[in-house]
């Protein structure tokens, strides 16, 4: 099912589709893109997943929380009117807001983990030549930051000191390879090999994180 379209015959393939995916999610696609979406199971699944993430991510947007004084005044007013009892009110009014963000975060993290696992399964079942890049590694906010890298190195230094320098140098190497591929891709966005190199570089970084966590 992967890469059914043929380049140069007016039919869009998966790589071309995934390149414009962010715009499709925001604004909808043109006829050609919609056609690919209808015909390709992999891409239609992916779009559904990403739409779901976008919806859930909205929950993470900081909400405007009224000042505690407002809650106290509402609480006092309701108590005065005898509409609620003291003990029930406390949990209800102060409860929901803080955990909405946490819930969103949990959903997002769980979903990212799910996509990572699914990406692996897709890779294993796809042929070597036709392997579709596991988009989750670059399209979600799961790309490790410099702080994450630092934390990884500290973790390795604490648990397996003899491996610390190897992780440091290989992490540097992977980050350099990511920068390399990004630079080339910026200069030539149509360079399919550079795009594949970038994806592989992120996969190598993911491997470092996985091995460090063992």
């Amino acid at each position: 099912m992967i890469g059914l379209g043929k380049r140069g015959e007016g039919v869009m393939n998966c790589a071309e589709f995934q390149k414009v995916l962010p715009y499709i999610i925001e604004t909808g696609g043109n006829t050609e893109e919609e056609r690919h979406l209808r015909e390709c199971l992999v891409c239609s699944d992916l779009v559904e997943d990403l739409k779901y993430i976008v919806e859930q991510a909205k929950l993470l947007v900081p909400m405007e929380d009224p000042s505690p004084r407002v809650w106290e005044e509402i609480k006092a007013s309701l108590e005065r009117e005898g509409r609620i009892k003291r003990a029930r009110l406390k949990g209800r009014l102060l409860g929901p807001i803080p955990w909405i963000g946490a819930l969103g975060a949990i959903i997002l993290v769980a979903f990212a983990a799910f996509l990572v696992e699914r990406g692996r399964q897709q890779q294993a079942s796809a042929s070597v030549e036709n392997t579709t890049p596991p988009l989750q590694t670059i399209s979600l906010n799961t790309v490790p930051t410099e702080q994450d890298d630092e934390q990884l190195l500290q973790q390795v230094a604490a648990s397996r000191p003899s491996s610390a320098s190897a992780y440091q140098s290989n992490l540097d190497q992977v980050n350099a390879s990511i920068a390399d591929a990004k630079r080339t891709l910026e200069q030539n966005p149509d360079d399919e090999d550079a795009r594949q190199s970038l994806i592989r570089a992120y996969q190598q970084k993911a491997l470092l994180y996985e091995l460090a966590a063992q």
Partner: protein
Amino acid sequence: MAGRQKMSNTSRSVTLGLLAALALAATASAADKKEFRYTVARGATISVVNDYGSVRLRASGVSQVVVSATPSSSKVEVDAAQNGNRVEVRTHFLRKTGENDGRVEYDLQVPADANVMIRTASGPVQVRGVGGDVSVDADTGQVDVRDSNGHVRVRTVGGPITLNNLKDGFVEATSVGGPVMLNNVAGRVVSVNTTGGAIVYSGDFGGGGQYSLTSHSGNIDVSLSASASVDLTARTVTGTVENDFPLQAPVHPIMALSQGKSFAGTSNAGASAVRLRTFSGRIRVKKSH
């Protein structure tokens, strides 16, 4: 004369003392060696976790797992247990320790159809003759897997990987910085990935499989026998490619070829698909002698 006699006596005492110390050390070392034996059924799973020290594992003709472990100090011990058809061996640090005191050397014999999982940090790993699935993860330890025909997966941070005489399986070797050497490796799917590590392949890409050798900045060197039946493509983004192997140019190229950056072609029936890719490394394909 008396002086010489005294010197001779002293020398003899020192020699005897040294011999006694060596004998004691040998006794202590032998006493530290542990051996565990487990009878297992077909398709048993054996896992070994050992940060420091070597793990040498080879297939035997019997349905028994024999674990021989030599800890280097009293700061470390070996936990081994059998749960059903699974044997788990793990190095256990009794207190905080480093590479020298935390080392345990393992020698294992397992049934030929066993599945094996090994995790090390810096210790070298050797796996020989195992017909089941083999999975090895290491940080800097050297990994050597040979004479297997199951699914082989090896992943390292910087440790070199050597794969020899692997047949008919699914082979996956990934190292960030370590080199990967493949000799007579053939299978339905063979996939090698590195960031900076070089990849060296020697053999015939047999089995009508799909082969993918990929490195970001490492070089890829392929020595191909004349009988190889391959449909090969090679491409680099900013590196170079060289081909000394007689390939027939493709009638319908599946990718645009550019001089010095890519080449493609088939040899014999083109039974196996071979894909070589680097970002900035050099790809070289030559005929083996």
